[in-house]
């Protein structure tokens, strides 16, 4: 199976095949001998790459794999060849709707914009308080605020839609 991975602006393609107990990965002209074992019941793995040992915790989602390894956290975008083909057909949408959602349950401390405001990337839209900390939620791209669905003082659930932009 061929996987396209992206991390920090870098893209790498790995072809992974099984040969009995061992896995082989190819990336360009490099070949790695892999041995990957699940440890316990879920997200912990022992990974041997050419005999070097890595303790890995992986949370595997459809598009992203979040890893704890080497004392760091990595969120790697992964597509297998079929997903990649499907995305290529769908094409890239340019512009369109932006949604601001609450990443965690919390209380809306402030709404910094009004409907109709043109905002730049990085502009704070809403301030959400959770765990005694105030968290500014910023625009990920420039746009115009089209709807505001929360108000100051309101408690919101994780995933709640707070604001829409175009």
């Amino acid at each position, binding site marked *: 199976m061929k996987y396209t991975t992206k991390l920090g602006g870098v893209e790498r393609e790995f072809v992974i095949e099984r040969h009995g107990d061992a896995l082989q*990965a190819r990336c360009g002209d490099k070949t790695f001998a892999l041995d990957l074992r699940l440890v316990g019941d*879920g997200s912990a793995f022992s990974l041997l790459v050419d005999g070097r040992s890595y303790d890995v915790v992986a949370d595997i*989602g*459809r598009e992203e794999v979040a890893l704890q390894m080497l004392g760091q956290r990595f969120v790697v975008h992964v597509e*297998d060849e079929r997903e990649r083909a499907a995305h290529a057909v769908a094409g890239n949408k340019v512009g369109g709707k932006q949604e601001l959602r609450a990443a*965690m349950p919390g209380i809306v401390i402030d709404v910094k914009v009004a409907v109709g405001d043109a905002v730049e990337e990085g502009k704070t839209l809403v301030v959400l308080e959770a765990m005694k900390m105030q968290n500014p939620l910023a625009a990920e791209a420039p746009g115009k605020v089209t709807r505001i669905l929360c108000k100051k003082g309101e408690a919101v659930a994780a995933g709640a839609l707070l604001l829409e932009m175009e």
Partner: protein
Amino acid sequence: MPMFRRILIANRGEIALRVIRTAQEMGIETVAVYSDADRAALHVRRATHAVHLGGSKPSESYLDIGKIVAAAKRTGCDALHPGYGFLSENEDLAQACKDAGIEFLGPPPHAITVMGDKVEARKAAAKAGVPLVPGLQEDVDAARLVAAAKQVGYPVMLKAAAGGGGKGIRIVREEKQLVEAFELARAEARSSFGDERIYLEKFVTRPRHVEIQVMADKHGNVVHYGERECSVQRRHQKLVEESPCVALTPELRAQMGKAACDLARSVGYVGAGTVEFLWSEGRFYFMEMNTRLQVEHPVTEMRYGVDLVREQIRVGAGEKLSPVPEPRGHAIEVRVNAEDPDKFFPSLGTLTRINLPGGPGVRLDSAMYRGMEVTPYYDSMLAKLVVHGADRDQAIARCARALRELRIVGVVTSLPVALATLRAPAFAAGDYDTSILESIDRKPTAQHEELAMLAAAAARFLGAERAGAAVESAGAARASAPRWAMVGRADRLRRTGP
């Protein structure tokens, strides 16, 4: 005075557990208090008794003085430990305990009141001969300001008396800018805080946060256990603490220790306290006194081989302070918070897996357990990792090693930030100040990134493979399959579907 029979711990989390552990070692019973969210918390399970206080919001439980004192009375407690945070620096709780005949394991109400007020605390420090950041606090006008700035030397800071958390601060580098800046700062303070009072302070360059641990008994004895350096902080929240501080000479350490003890003595202090100083260019200045046990107290415990909670309980019972042991080696503490290491955003969830570090010189203070839910109600700190080494280099290496052993799955943690700090050349050299976190390069190496991409692809491959096997065994245990297998199974189903 006899030792206590039963102590109520008016707190939660790791500090409640910390106090329970020492009490248990001393043969003292403990009463835990808890909110709705904390029914199954570790401090409830480890205490000898537990009392439900109310709702999960702190105001309905851990901040309700009436409920807490009533619980202490009802369970026949003869002492109360406030921990840190919540009501630990609340003079009303100290007074309510006193009125109820329960020993509050902290200073008398008066000492809490004085140190809790910025202006009063500064006055007390000045009276006790503790150095303050030079400046002009009272009757500020343009002419007096110019004279004061000339005396303390530029750059200077103009601060709004009603400001806080970095708001309302202006730095002035030259005399010709001073009066204009003062007028602007005053107008700003009036509109932002409704209070136009401005004061002037010398701008302290490259400050380090260095604090002295003190302990006082009821017989007039005050001792100190050296310093902790806590300059690694983000938005005034400490992340890495160490002792000793590499910037202190023995003479300066002795001066700071004496200043801290003098201040404690001057307010009739009892129990554990911390006097926080700013250190800059070989001089130190009083910041504030925290009238409680600090989060980072284990750094001192590791270096001195002392149990500060035991000392708190002993002096509360009227005993005399134990002699201060000789400090040895080097200790480092790292706080592990449930927060995104890049955006410092709190991370909520259920802890599905925990691997704890071990080995020589390692201590982990934590109340986390597998299955614990991290809720938005309380502080995001999950654990404190504390290590001791023969010297600073060994302590740093040991801390990094133990951090790599610690795995927490279910929430995202600040652990990578701590590890990057320990690796940073400025930290290793000991040449850092309170801005160190802003300058640390946390970008992983290209080689590490490549390994992560390989691991991610391999994990997806294994997930798809195992899901395939699961499909072949006709959907057995489908509901209990972990999430990665579900993703893999969807892959497989799509592939084999019509």
